[in-house]
């Protein structure tokens, strides 16, 4: 196990390094670094001085080493727009994004599980067919358009929910959170639902498939034969067993939820790091772009690493297989 752990850690480190090269080359070599790093207001003399100061006259590999050393010290440059460290800007907005992502995952289980359970227990009823058709729509509908439609219905026509921003926040562990206030929750409802839509469909399908499979198992038949009430069979015997895979998959989706929050945050003007990156790309605030990409890559690699390690703990075949190759 230790050997596997070390190997896997080394692999992850290698990927981080590779991604840092890609991001570096992407931003510093494909784009014009002078234009990227020096304010467009600067005159010719200032430019030349800045080129030397920033080390842009050095060969590319040396520049990369400088970039890497600074990045390791947590210095990913200053934002042009805010004139603050890019890393700080992103970390400031991270709670908003995480809050939204976790809210969406919570919603997907809250809505998806009961619907999937119903569809699995009564596969032939018209309601179940409606649920399944709805889940196909959930997969096909473009997220951003659904967001707009939510705003149109609930904010413009009915006037029930606010359409933009985070609302009031309350402080917990030194960070600001919206889910602790009523106003914040009402601001969070639509974006979270929008972000959850895809996951709801996923949970419905997983639960339905799980229920249909589990209902045929011997232990369910036995529980029924014992004369247990259908409710007890469903909620204790069936439900417990489908919960584990469903929760696992939803957990795995955390990363992609955070990535797709870019879209939802833009629609609802949610001040998270997804909105920040889109704004930064639009105004070419490259240090923030680099910092965002590095952070999110790091996040993904960490999530993947944790998932792989958990799997190998649960399923020894994975470990043994990787030893063989």
């Amino acid at each position, binding site marked *: 196990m230790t050997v596997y752990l070390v190997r896997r850690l080394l692999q992850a480190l290698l990927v981080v390094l590779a991604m840092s090269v890609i991001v570096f080359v*992407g931003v510093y070599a494909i784009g014009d670094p002078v234009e990227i790093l020096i304010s467009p207001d600067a005159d010719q003399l200032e430019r030349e001085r800045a080129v030397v100061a920033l080390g842009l006259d050095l060969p590319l590999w040396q520049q990369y080493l400088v970039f890497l050393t600074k990045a390791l010290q947590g210095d990913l440059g200053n934002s042009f727009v805010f004139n603050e460290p890019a890393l700080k800007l992103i970390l400031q907005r991270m709670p908003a994004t995480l809050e939204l992502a976790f809210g969406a995952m919570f919603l997907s289980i809250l809505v998806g599980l009961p619907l999937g359970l119903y569809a699995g227990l009564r596969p032939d009823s018209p309601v179940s067919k409606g649920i399944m058709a709805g889940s196909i729509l959930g997969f*096909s509908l*473009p*997220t*951003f*358009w659904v967001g*707009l439609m939510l705003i149109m219905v609930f904010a413009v026509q009915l006037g029930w929910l606010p359409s933009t921003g985070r609302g009031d926040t309350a402080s917990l562990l030194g960070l600001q959170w919206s889910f602790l206030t009523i106003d914040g929750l009402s601001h969070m409802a639509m974006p979270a639902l929008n972000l959850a839509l895809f996951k709801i469909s996923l949970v419905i399908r997983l639960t339905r498939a799980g229920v249909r499979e589990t209902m045929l198992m011997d232990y369910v038949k036995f529980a029924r034969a014992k004369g247990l009430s259908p409710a007890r069979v469903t909620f204790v015997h069936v439900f417990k067993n489908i919960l584990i895979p469903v929760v696992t998959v939803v957990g795995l989706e955390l990363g992609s939820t955070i990535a*797709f929050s870019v*879209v939802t945050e833009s629609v609802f003007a949610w001040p998270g790091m997804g909105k920040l990156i889109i704004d930064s790309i639009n105004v070419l605030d490259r240090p923030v772009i680099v910092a965002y990409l590095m952070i999110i890559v790091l996040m*993904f690699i960490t999530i993947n690493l944790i998932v792989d390690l958990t799997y190998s703990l649960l399923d020894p075949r994975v470990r043994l297989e990787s030893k063989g190759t």
Partner: protein
Amino acid sequence: MSDATANGTAPATPRKDKVETPFRRFVSEFCESKVAIGGLIVFTAIALIAIFAPWITPQNPYDLAQLDIMDGRQEPGTTGGAGFTFWLGTDDQGRDMMSGIMYGLRISLTVGAGSALIACLVGASLGLLAAYAGGRTDSAIMRLVDLQLSFPSILVALMILAFLGKGIMNVVIALVIVEWAYYARTVRGTALVERRREYIEAAQCLALPTHRILFRHLLPNCLPPLIVVATMQVARAIALEATLSFLGLGVPITEPSLGLLIANGYEYMLSGKYWISFYPGIALLVTIVSINLVGDQLRDVLNPRLKK
């Protein structure tokens, strides 16, 4: 399993009589699902609209001479200064939304299908190579595939567009980079099974050149799953392009796809002028769903495990 190589080398088989050819069987199996036929009809209609948009729209939405700012933000059904009815309303420039959507479909479909096609070529070639060469080539290519698939598509596309900037070509490049891995994985999986068959051995015994074995013998037999993946990926590409354009990272304002049309209507949404965003969204939705319905049925028909 359809044996395309046999058909290719022996065209002598008479086709006029009612012998059940693989193609006929495929067609009749596809037609078993009414939903899929509906999807195919709708998609064909959409494709025709997109192709013939310049001849059937009441105005050219990007010819400024034909636009009248006085017609701006008209509700659906009003008749404008030029004398025709705006069935789907107009946007802030006085542009007929119906014409705008038809032109937008052209761009969405071109970008979606074009990028899917290029990604298919790149991905299928690399997948074939990985399966046929094996060893280090295989593990190098598949490592790359695994690495890329561990990141969500929107993130990869975002990264590439952050490097390259806006523009139709850049969107296509981003979509190709996002998608090739799906094709590569699919083709490699099938090709690994197929390359152990006798006909490959026979081709190798004949000392045919590698590229000929790959593309004339191996590839045709990997086509069924590839077609299914390609159909689904076209829908995904269209949706992703729309998302990127909505975020302002995709196509330029002069060549608006459906996603950009929706984005344009965003600011008018709050004042109740829903149609500027609503109808392009419906067009996008119908396109994606119809392609997915066809893809679903193709998957059922072409899946050898479900064969009766």
